[in-house]
């Protein structure tokens, strides 16, 4: 059969319908005339002839309908008709349509947004070819015990010498680079120092020039830098002349050899420059600054690579008897970026799935209620000869329309939500820059909304169409067995909604409790957080690595800063609470000989100037703080934290005892402990007390080139910032100031991630609760409407308003109690999954498990009270006349 003929028929049938119909009508009438004439010729009288002809034709409209059913595009036409009819019905019931569409939009919108975020972070391909074959290699060993810790160049050499699994292994370290010497204001950027295999492992081509290759990481190699696109545009005006030119980093010349595109964001999203690491033959283990990155050789799996590094780990332990329980974990690039947030995202995905479920249940409930009201319409149409299949299809079309509207609104909602989430991103969600509403999320939404439409449309549609015509028409669509079954199903749906809401509320409640506990944890300092301003300072030139130059520079900075009006205290340190651990090292205690090959655990070691403790408000428990007499020429002293004393001095008084940085064999001097200070959180407030162990060395006796400046200002912190910057630059024009902010901001940042999760979960729970209360309100209103007569009779027989109120509310409370019981059982089963993410809160927290049911009961009470009050005002006379 010819396609052309089909298409032209379709065209005619759809667009020239009147012509086609007129033609058909003419044809059938002509046929009828012919039959009549034949009958007349056979001897019938005209009236009889006509009647017989009509009988033979068998009903003009039926024949036409049969012909129409054969036309090309007939199905399409019927569907269009269903769509038009559906739109009309939905518009006639704005209340129902709005509630259902909004419920769906919320469920679908939240789902799409969460799916997009989870997809972007957990699934979207990273912008490096074959990124799943790139591994990050870390090192974990006792006593350093960081799960994904760092390795030293000596360890790297051993790995490289024994490597068969990876193409050229590379090493990298995050660093800060002071860029200056070009006349513009010196600037500090995040950078990385990398070996020759680094860029080839990631295989992302440079935007301009070249990147490091083999041989660029020798001890004799020239100093080179590859810059990021953003830095190139910002500082070098996107000029191609930058290639081959020399820029100053830390005062030393570096040749610019290439520019990486903006999409290349490794090791961190903010990295803007990469310099070549010059591998001098190592003479000892340490410093442990580096992590490895390498691409698997073809045919090698991550598991095989891990097996090989395990063997290399054993070899490292033989080489260095300080290493205990050493392993070299091999992480996929994605796990490296997103491993920590994975669980939180999965939990949020699960939660948002429950929200969608509540939305679907809610809409199904509404549809059922409406189905009951429409039983009569359906029965009437069936008795007039409508096909059941056709009716089902038409009802289904209504659901699909509703789901499509909900899906469209939901997509718009998701779009907004994603933009909001990206703007709100606490910085802890990695790869957030890859998150966008993408085609896949859209397909997911559409699938969800269509499936939802079919799900909640099918059941009521089947029921309506199966209705027993006689009884339905007789009963006036009020009760009947189908009605009773449906009422039971609706009650079950409301119970399910309440149960799901309980689960979400319990989850949100636990998160809120946990966040509250976390926020109550003190950072270990009592200074007014709004007035403490912190920043990173760097002298900007590597010659300041020498303490003889560096210490005078910083002393000059302190002197100038203290003279700025409004500055109460100013101090220097190389670590800051709540989350900026500077250095961490082992230590030795005089008189506690270590077992050969054993070293003490690695704890925070902080270099701080005399004013540090007062500026932040770190309490002195015993002894004294550092003071201006603790200089390079005086006796070396140390302070230790309370936890340090508790853990390592076993009840003896630590004051007066001697401590050494790193431990024996490093040639460090003994430090006399002169004071015990309060515990300070340097690793984040969620860390356990044991990690609060820290020892402090006096600035001047100890030195590090990059320090934090902490200033306590009497007024607002913002006012003095410009003055501080000016004074620092005056002390040294090459100095850079970066990462400025108040302690308040740092504390906020420290809990930003749990706050983010908590806010989302609370939002989901609130949405579910709202929908559940709409559901119960709908059910009770409907049931009150259905029982108008009964209630009227009760009132006529003397029931008081209180009795009626109790009658209605008891029904709502029974449902609520059932839903709450189910929800609590479900919560107990599910919240175990949350335990790892809770801080100081049990997953069976009694407070939450009591509060949530109470809150839910009061919401249900409120939702039921409105229809219940309406019931008390039913007039018996009107109710009995109702029919």
């Amino acid at each position, binding site marked *: 059969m010819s396609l052309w003929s*089909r298409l032209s028929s379709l065209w005619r049938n759809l667009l020239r319908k009147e012509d086609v119909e007129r033609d058909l009508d003419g044809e059938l009438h*002509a046929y009828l005339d*012919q039959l009549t004439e034949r009958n007349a010729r056979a001897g019938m009288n005209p009236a009889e002839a006509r009647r017989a002809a009509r009988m033979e034709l068998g009903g003009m409209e039926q024949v036409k309908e049969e012909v129409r059913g054969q036309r090309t595009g007939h199905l399409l036409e019927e569907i269009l008709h269903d769509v038009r009819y559906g739109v009309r019905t939905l518009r006639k019931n704005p209340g129902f349509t709005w509630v259902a569409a909004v419920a769906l939009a919320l469920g679908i919108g939240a789902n799409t947004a969460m799916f997009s975020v989870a997809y972007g972070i957990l699934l979207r391909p990273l912008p490096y070819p074959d990124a799943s074959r790139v591994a990050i290699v870390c090192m974990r060993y006792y006593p350093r015990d960081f799960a994904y810790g760092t390795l030293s160049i000596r360890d790297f050499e051993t790995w490289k010498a024994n490597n068969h699994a990876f193409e050229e292994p590379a090493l990298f370290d995050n660093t800060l680079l002071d860029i200056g010497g070009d006349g513009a204001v010196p600037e500090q950027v995040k950078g990385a120092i990398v070996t020759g295999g680094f860029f080839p492992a990631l295989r992302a081509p440079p935007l301009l020039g070249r990147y490091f290759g083999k041989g660029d990481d020798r001890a004799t190699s020239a100093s080179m830098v590859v810059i990021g696109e953003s830095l190139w545009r910002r500082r070098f005006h996107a000029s191609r002349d930058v290639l081959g030119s020399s820029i100053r980093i830390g005062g030393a010349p570096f040749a610019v050899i290439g520019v990486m595109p903006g999409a290349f964001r490794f090791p961190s999203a903010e990295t803007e420059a990469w310099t070549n690491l010059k591998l001098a033959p190592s003479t000892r283990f340490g410093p442990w600054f580096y992590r490895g990155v390498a691409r698997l050789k073809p045919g090698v799996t991550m598991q095989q690579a891990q097996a090989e590094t395990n063997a290399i780990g054993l070899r490292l332990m033989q080489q260095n008897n300080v290493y205990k329980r050493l392993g070299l974990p091999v992480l996929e690039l994605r796990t490296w970026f997103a491993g920590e947030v994975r669980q939180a995202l999965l939990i949020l995905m699960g939660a948002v799935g429950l929200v969608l479920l509540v939305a679907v249940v809610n809409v199904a409930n509404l549809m059922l209620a409406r189905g009951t009201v429409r039983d009569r319409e359906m029965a009437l149409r069936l008795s007039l000869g409508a096909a059941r299949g056709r009716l089902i299809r038409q009802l289904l079309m209504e659901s699909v329309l509703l789901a499509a509207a909900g899906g469209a609104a939901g997509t718009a909602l998701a779009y907004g939500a994603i933009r909001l989430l990206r703007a709100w991103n606490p910085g802890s969600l990695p790869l957030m820059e890859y998150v966008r509403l993408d085609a896949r999320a859209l397909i997911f939404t559409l699938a969800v909304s269509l499936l939802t439409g079919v799900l909640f449309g099918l059941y009521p549609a089947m029921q309506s169409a199966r209705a027993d015509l006689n009884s339905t028409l007789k009963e006036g669509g009020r009760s009947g067995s189908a009605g009773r079954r449906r009422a039971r199903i609706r009650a079950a749906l409301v119970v399910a909604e309440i149960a799901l809401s309980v689960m979400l509320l319990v989850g949100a409640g636990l998160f809120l409790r946990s966040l509250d506990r976390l926020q109550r944890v003190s950072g270990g300092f009592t200074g007014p957080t709004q007035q403490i301003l912190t920043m990173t300072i760097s002298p900007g030139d590597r010659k300041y690595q020498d303490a003889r130059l560096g210490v005078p520079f910083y002393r000059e900075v302190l002197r100038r800063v203290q003279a700025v009006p409004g500055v109460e205290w100013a101090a220097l340190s190389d670590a800051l609470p709540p989350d900026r651990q500077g250095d961490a090292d082992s230590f030795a205690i005089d008189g506690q000989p270590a077992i050969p090959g054993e070293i003490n655990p690695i704890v925070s070691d902080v270099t701080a100037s005399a004013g540090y403790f007062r500026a932040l408000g770190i309490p002195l428990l015993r002894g004294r703080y550092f003071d201006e007499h603790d200089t390079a020429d005086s006796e070396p002293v140390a302070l230790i934290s309370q936890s340090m004393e508790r853990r390592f001095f076993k009840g003896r008084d630590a004051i007066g005892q001697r401590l050494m940085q790193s431990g024996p064999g490093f040639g460090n001097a003994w430090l006399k402990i002169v004071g015990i200070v309060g515990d300070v959180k340097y690793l984040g407030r969620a860390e356990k007390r044991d990690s609060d162990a820290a020892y402090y060395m006096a600035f001047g006796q100890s030195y590090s080139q990059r320090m934090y400046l902490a200033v306590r200002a009497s007024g607002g912190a913002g006012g003095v910032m410009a003055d501080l910057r000016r004074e620092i630059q005056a002390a040294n024009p090459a100095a850079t100031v970066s990462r400025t902010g108040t302690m308040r901001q740092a504390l906020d940042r420290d809990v930003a991630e749990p706050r983010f999760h908590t806010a989302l979960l609370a939002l989901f729970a609130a949405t579910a609760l709202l929908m559940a209360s709409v559901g119960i309100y709908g059910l009770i209103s409907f049931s009150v409407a259905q029982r108008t007569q009964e209630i009227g009779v009760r009132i006529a027989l003397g029931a008081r308003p209180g009795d009626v109120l109790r009658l209605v509310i008891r029904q709502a409370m029974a449902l609520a109690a059932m839903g709450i019981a189910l929800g609590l059982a479900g919560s107990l089963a599910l919240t175990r999954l949350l335990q790892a993410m809770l801080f100081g809160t049990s997953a069976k927290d009694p407070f939450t498990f009591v509060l949530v049911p109470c809150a839910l009961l009061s919401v249900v009470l409120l939702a039921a009270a409105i229809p219940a009050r309406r019931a008390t005002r039913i007039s018996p006379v009107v109710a009995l006349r109702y029919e």
Partner: protein
Amino acid sequence: MSGKQTNLLQGTLDLLILKALALEQMHGLGISNRIAQITRGTFVVKPGSLFPALHRMEEAGWLASSWGESENNRRAKYYKLTAAGRRQFETEWRQWKTIALAMRSALDAQ
């Protein structure tokens, strides 16, 4: 209406219509008369089956229709085979013969 009306096999109606129109163009009544005649009254095609079939076959491109004058000078719609319809007729005829032969040998088998 014939008492011993035989139900038309699925697809048979199309073949009969094609056969009826093989010689000359005809209007609806003519087609049903002709089918009754060539099947010796075994098949009587009712309008409720005839017209849907005619319209379906026309949309498939096998038939072409035009308005003309009937034998009693009345307006009537005439159908004729198109080239595609003629090819379809050949095909269906061949298929039918194969099936008929197969059915007969199947039913005659001992």
